[in-house]
């Protein structure tokens, strides 16, 4: 990981009193390689390296700390700063007013499962009446999947009768209002960021329902393209936050860092298991230490 890379690079520098361009040259190269190995986007790595190099060279080494530890701290703090200083909550309206949450993302990212997890989380943590809306009219048995997920979460699921996602989203909204639900969570079909029609579909759903939270659900093991994909979803929907799934994998999770740096929207939750309770509030320090390896 990156911590080891820095340690190795600084092994030869015992007794050095300050960080200079020379003694961090090797460390920088190793960090660059380690970050790319961790799936951080290449362009983000470039900018990040420039930032921490400038910071490191400019710093007087704190008396109690040696250059190596100082440098590790600069890198760690740099990652934590970009990830966001604290977790940002959902934008829930006062109870009695309908809050709408829209989930969107690539195929297989974990939207349907996350919809259930989110419903259970909101219901239990805030004692709200939640309705799930099944707006994936394409994937075989997607509706059945959300219905089962709703059962596991202990919440109702709205199922439309027509094969029209936009119509169903509007019907579910009416149903949420008339049924006195506090929160409506819209599960949508997986879609490619380069599929114009499908991106227009989710944009229309968002325009019609004006959600309070538009969450980009993304697989944490994405590679270099995570940025391009997140950008497209953000440009189309102006997302209010990101949920990164499958963080229980052993992926380093550099996509999290890349996405946050580029679209600068808060990472609100991470998925940590397949189970209905597998949702955690995002804490930047945890992710930073994973990327650092």
């Amino acid at each position, binding site marked *: 990981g990156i911590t080891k890379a820095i340690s190795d690079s600084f092994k030869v520098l015992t007794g050095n009193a300050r960080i200079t361009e020379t003694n961090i040259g090797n460390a920088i190269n190793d960090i660059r*390689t380690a970050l*790319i*190995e*961790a*799936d951080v986007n*290449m362009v983000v790595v470039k900018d990040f390296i420039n930032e921490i190099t400038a910071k490191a060279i400019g710093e007087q080494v704190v008396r109690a700390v040696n250059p190596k530890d100082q440098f590790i701290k600069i890198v760690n703090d740099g990652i934590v700063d970009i990830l966001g200083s604290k977790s940002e909550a959902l934008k829930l309206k006062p109870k009695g007013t309908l809050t709408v949450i829209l989930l969107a993302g*690539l*195929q*297989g*990212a*974990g939207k*349907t*499962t996350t919809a259930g997890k989110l419903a259970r989380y909101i219901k239990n943590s805030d004692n709200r009446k939640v309705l799930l809306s099944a707006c994936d009219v*394409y*994937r*075989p*048995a*997607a509706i*059945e*999947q959300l*219905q*089962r*997920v709703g059962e*596991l979460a202990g919440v109702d699921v709205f199922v439309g009768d027509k094969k029209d996602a936009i119509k169903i989203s509007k019907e579910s909204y009416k149903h949420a209002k008339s049924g006195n639900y506090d929160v409506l969570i819209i599960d949508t079909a997986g879609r*490619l*960021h*380069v599929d114009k029609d499908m991106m227009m579909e989710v944009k229309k759903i968002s325009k019609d329902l004006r959600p309070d939270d538009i969450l980009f659900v993304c*697989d944490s*093991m*994405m*590679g*270099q*393209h*995570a940025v391009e*994909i997140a950008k497209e979803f953000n440009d189309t929907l102006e997302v209010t936050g990101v949920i990164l799934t*499958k963080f*229980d*994998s*052993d*992926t*380093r999770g*550099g*996509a999290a860092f890349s996405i946050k740096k580029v679209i600068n929207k808060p990472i609100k939750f991470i998925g940590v298991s*397949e189970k209905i309770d597998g949702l955690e509030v995002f804490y930047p320090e945890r992710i930073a230490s994973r990327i650092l390896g």
Partner: protein
Amino acid sequence: LFTGKSLDDNDLLKLEEVLLSSDIGPQISSTLITKLRLKGLNTIENAIEFLKKELHDIICDKEYILKDGVLNIVLVLGVNGVGKTTSIGKLANFHLKKGKTVLLAAADTFRAAATEQLTRWAKVMDIPIVKQGEGADPASIVYDAVDSAKSKGVDLLIIDTAGRLQNKKHLMDELKKMYKIIETKGGCDTHNLLVIDATTGQNAFHQAHVFNEVVGVNMIMMTKYDALSKGGIVFNISKKLNIPFTFIGKGEKIEDIEVFNREKFIERIFN
């Protein structure tokens, strides 16, 4: 970006970025750029041709062809959400069109509506499917499916399994148990097919590595190639594990499958 001019350090940097942004990974990228630098080529065109040839030599690809006179089994495995179930539909159809008979087995008994999802695919193709209720032991479905496939005399049995992260020991043990059942029954030609997502980063190598350690991986299918990621994870897997890529998934429809083609794949890295 690249026009007929001679190679300088900046060009080498740009070429390295093309490799890195394709998820080829820093190791292979730096090895190739170092080789390229030592080659002392003088045009970008020559450099790209050199890189294409190097990449061509790294890739493992192979055609998956059914054996005659024996039950062929494909056990489909991989992490969550990569496209296993959908790919099974595509693979079944691919062989049906070649006049083969196919049986499906819904051995993902964990995920909500997994059996219903595969059953839809079976219905679309009007082929039989072995399944049980949610929470059933996946090993027992494998057991029944192999027996059923043999008694029906089908050419190909494709078994769907639950998505599982390779770092979850109990899930890998479950998979091993399913594989052992097929092995123990014998009398069939089995291929373990790992499905990986083209948008996945360096973790794909770890997926291939661990699945290969646990049950052995005979072939790989890369899905979501239509998401326009370059899928450079192919190279690490080919180079270090020597496991052949056999199919590409390029969409959500049953016909969105194609045989893995080395040339086309490398062409797209440089587009």
